[in-house]
């Protein structure tokens, strides 16, 4: 979910909350102060989180429409070519171009293309390819903690301590530094 960055930062400040309501309000206040949030991790989908983080609506479904349309076109043209030109056979006394019997296969290919296309796009866009070592900011984000991650690479010590005190003020139960080794 991170914004595309030219170089991936290794040094972070992580704030942890234990309640979604407080967390949502904290995000709003922190963003209001002009502080950039690097990432947000929650144990379950939180209603209104995208809005609070200011995310734009995803374009994944638009991509999905075009993947699906590709599948539709491919299935119809291929079957038409086979049944009319390449290998016309008469089955069950149906016409040589039996469109109704194409529909189920067209439907399946549309779904297949849309599903695979969207899944792969999602994985590539989120850098979730096989063999990737995941960066775990805090293990409890899959259990009961709501985390906000701030990029601490290029900001001063003063700003880091400002962020930390702001998090505590906004109800964070824990604030910590997290540094990853280069390449991790």
């Amino acid at each position: 979910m991170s914004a595309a960055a030219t170089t991936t930062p290794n040094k972070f400040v992580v704030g942890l909350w234990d309640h979604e309501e407080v967390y949502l309000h904290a995000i709003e206040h922190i963003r209001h102060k002009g502080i950039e949030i690097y990432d947000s991790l929650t144990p379950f989908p939180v209603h209104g989180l995208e809005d609070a983080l200011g995310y734009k609506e995803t374009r994944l479904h638009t991509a999905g429409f075009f993947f699906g349309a590709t599948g539709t076109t491919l299935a119809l043209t291929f079957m038409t070519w086979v049944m009319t030109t390449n290998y016309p056979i008469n089955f069950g006394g149906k016409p040589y171009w039996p469109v109704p019997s194409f529909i189920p296969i067209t439907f399946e290919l549309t779904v297949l293309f849309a599903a695979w296309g969207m899944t792969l796009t999602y994985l590539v866009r989120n850098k979730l390819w096989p063999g990737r070592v995941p960066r775990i900011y805090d293990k409890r984000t899959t259990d009961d903690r709501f985390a906000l991650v701030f990029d601490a690479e290029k900001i001063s010590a003063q700003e880091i301590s400002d962020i930390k005190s702001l998090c505590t003020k906004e109800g964070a139960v824990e604030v910590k530094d997290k540094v990853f080794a280069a390449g991790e």
Partner: protein
Amino acid sequence: MNETFEFTDKLKKQLFIMMGIGLLGLVMVFFLHPHNSHARFWANILANTYYFTGISIFGMFAVSAATLAYGGWHVLVKRILLSLAAFVRVSGFVLVLIVVLGLLNVHTLYDHVKEILHESPVAENHTTKVIFFAPAFWISRLVAYAFLWALFSWAMNKFFARTDQTDPKVYKQSKLLAAAFIVTFAVTESAASWDYIMCLDTHWYSTLFGWYNFASYGCAAWAMTILLVIYLKSKGYLSRVNENHVHDLGKLLFGFSIFWTYLWFDQFMLQWFANIPEETSFWVKRFGEGYFKFTIFGALIINFLFPLFFLIKRSAKRSFKMIGFGSALLIFGHYVDFFNYVFIEPNWNHELQHGHHAKLQTEKVVLYAQHEEHPAAVSDATPAHENKAEVAGEVKHEGAGHEAATEAHGEHGAVGAEAHGEHVAGGHGHEAPVSNFAGIGVGELLVFIGFLGAFLFAFFNNLSKRPIIVENDPYLKENEKLVVTYS
């Protein structure tokens, strides 16, 4: 915050005007189309009553399903969904009355069933149908549906308005009530679709017809809910319902539209592919008449292509104007769909006289059954009848067809849908059948408006009796918080 809908005199007057328009339409079709025992009049009543009954019972189904699934998304519109069911308390019994009048030979809609019942000896493949449609069994089933629907409509409206919903005991009872209705709905909805609509053409069968009707009800009921939510919001009620809730309803509307298409196509393709005469006769009749070809594909365009390209956009589902327009169109589209099922049979029974054996216009079915003496005509069943797609008033004289029908009876009698009517001695040489063509005319539209008015009257009447939003619902807070916006 505990607002109750006020059923103003102004609104009542408007709805009474709508009902008056419907009455005018009924009078119009009754006197302008008296052929065939006023079949067009009765077909109008049946199609509309059945359609709005379906919307009614789907409202209860939606609440039951969401309750059983521990859903919270529907809580703010729960009373609207339940109030849809108010109409069924009357219409369920009207439907029974229609069938009873049909059996009493007041109208001809169910004459295909009566033919089978009067058959002697009973054809081998009709034995179970004779049992299933034995008047006592048939009518008692219909009465049972009507009573069950009315009972649940009353009970659910009463129960889900209780203010002690957070009491664990009451909460558990709500699950039981919902479960009881789901089971009842599953059985009665499917069986009602066979008993009222599928039997209009008694020989035709579709094993997914109950599902198909369910999907139609679904589209219409979600569309109706969306329109009513938008209307109530415009009147200042339901301030807590925002575009996110309408978006949820819109997604269901879109999903049910695709589901409907899936079943429509399944029904068509399996019968097209299998090519069993009992099944394909249904499509030959419909595609053979140019008008019905038009309404069938018209319904498919409105109910499938339109939602697919229009409602798929997120912004369309969230804009009250766009989703309102789409909902109104889909309500009409599904009316057209039921029109295709109900109206063709009255057109078909050109000469049915009650009290006598049926003299049916059978030439098309004979052609479809591929009578060997007319190879030129049978080579391509569908286009052979395109010239039949004429306007009302055309007199059709099909003497040759009747001869063919009489001959065909010996060979294909058990197969052709209408061939059984030709028991009559002297199937040829009789007077030309009076054309009784009924398309979607002014009469149909007026009657539809009238039934819509009656439906809305029942709806608003029920809605005004209790607060619109039931406070203390355990899921109310969750539903109120539904906010999803992107910058």
